[in-house]
């Protein structure tokens, strides 16, 4: 019985990025109606979790909102595992504040100063004497990692580490001096009452771009945009193939678009 238990070919285990989990669940729901014999179990927890689970053999498909890093790649090599990846959508990170703050757009440099904790007050940006409250993600989140790398900073130790995108939005709705970052898909679906999305411009002369602007994302013009990856072991391609095929199908692409992401064409 124990031996038969270790070989489970009827369930595809997908783990990883919280950004992608909602999308993955919706894909799995529709997938089930076309492939009733094949189960898909999905867990979130962050991109690092997905990649680690893939390495540990507790996942078949790792959702990741960042590309795999050198340290992880080294560990896969040590274990003699070959990897393949698949980009199934584009995501844009939205920086969100309370709608009562008098600020509409921001530069990456200003964001870096705020998020690393050197700019502790909103007065220089908005003229209002309010303390900055940072709502971020846990260190295992791909979003956290992406923002950190893109800005080249370490986050302030007083940044609150929230468990998910939605918790950040919830907190920002009731915090008139908070700032947080979430996937653009969530702003569209989580409701925008009491909050606003900042547009980002790189230099004084360049145009400020909104993460909700599909055309600009498609052109790759938004500063904080990234591809969403799915990693799998080369050896288990046959097992995960049905779900990858479904993601590429017309109905799969429609689900991706409806969920607030930008399909890769």
């Amino acid at each position: 019985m124990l031996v038969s238990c270790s070989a489970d070919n009827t369930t595809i285990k997908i783990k990883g990025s919280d950004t992608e989990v909602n999308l993955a669940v919706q894909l799995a729901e529709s997938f089930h109606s076309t492939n009733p014999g094949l189960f898909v179990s999905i867990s979130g927890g962050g991109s690092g979790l997905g990649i680690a689970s893939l390495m540990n053999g507790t996942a078949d498909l790792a959702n990741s909102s960042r590309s795999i890093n050198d340290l992880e790649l080294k560990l896969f090599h040590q274990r003699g595992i070959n990897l393949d990846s698949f980009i199934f959508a584009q995501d844009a990170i939205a920086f969100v504040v309370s709608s009562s703050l008098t600020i509409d757009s921001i530069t990456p440099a200003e964001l870096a100063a705020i998020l690393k904790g050197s700019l502790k007050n909103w007065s220089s940006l908005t003229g209002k004497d309010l303390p900055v409250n940072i709502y971020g993600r846990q260190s295992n989140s791909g979003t956290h990692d992406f923002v950190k790398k893109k800005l080249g900073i370490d986050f302030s130790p007083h940044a609150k580490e929230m468990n998910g995108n939605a918790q950040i939005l919830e907190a920002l709705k009731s915090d008139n001096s908070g700032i947080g970052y979430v996937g653009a898909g969530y702003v569209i679906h989580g409701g925008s009452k009491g909050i606003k999305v900042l547009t980002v411009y790189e230099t004084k002369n360049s145009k400020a771009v909104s993460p909700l602007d599909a055309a600009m994302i498609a052109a790759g013009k938004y500063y904080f945009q990234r591809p969403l990856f799915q990693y799998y072991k080369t050896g288990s391609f046959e097992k995960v193939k049905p779900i990858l095929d479904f993601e590429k199908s017309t109905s799969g692409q429609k689900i991706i678009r409806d969920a607030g992401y930008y399909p890769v064409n």
Partner: protein
Amino acid sequence: MPSVSWNFISKLPTEGMTKGGILPAITGTVLLTFITTIFAVPFGIACAIYLNEYARPSVLTNIIRASIRNLSGIPSIIYGLFGLALFVQALRLGTSVLSAGLTLGLLSLPYIITTTEEALKRIPTVMREATLALGATQFETIRDVVLPKALPGILTGVILTLSRAAGETAPILFTGVAFYINGLATSFNQEFMALPYHLYMLSTQHQSIGQVRPLAYGTAVVLIILVFIMNCIAFYIRFKQRTQD
């Protein structure tokens, strides 16, 4: 309680778990508790029988008793780590409902032993002596006289312990629970959904927490009702036994 309806407890989740029911979480918890039961109950009762009926005061008996006391004080998250190291990794059961159920079984074992032993202690020694005097072996005495008489007490302890196990989350975090599975769990080697984890996920991990708040309330209500029903059954058995005595 508008969120708890028949549809809520009998339908699969839909639209990224923002609508629909929690049936897979309910069946997952039931399956999980079933595995916990078939593992922990026989072992727990056997150990309690050994301690109360066979063991004489000795160093070994003292060590066993001390182990049981200490096991019941170990934080549940450490059982989770142990389950991960033993069942998921060493025994290669993977993240599955079997690994998680066995982990919860380990966690429940000390409680089942303690409550069973208390139930056995309440059986008067005279009853055992009478049977032994008639020529029955010790095992026959236990099987035919002690256990039937102690059954209500044992059952009370077992049901109370299982109600705790059904509500536990920390030990199943790394051993097999999943956010979502697109169907009902059918085998022991699948990952599974569970009510307590579903509540945790809906209230902290889901992307649209505000939107799924009613579902979280509903899940909390179903979970608490389930645990309370189990408790009430245990209390009823205990009450009936006391009025009989």
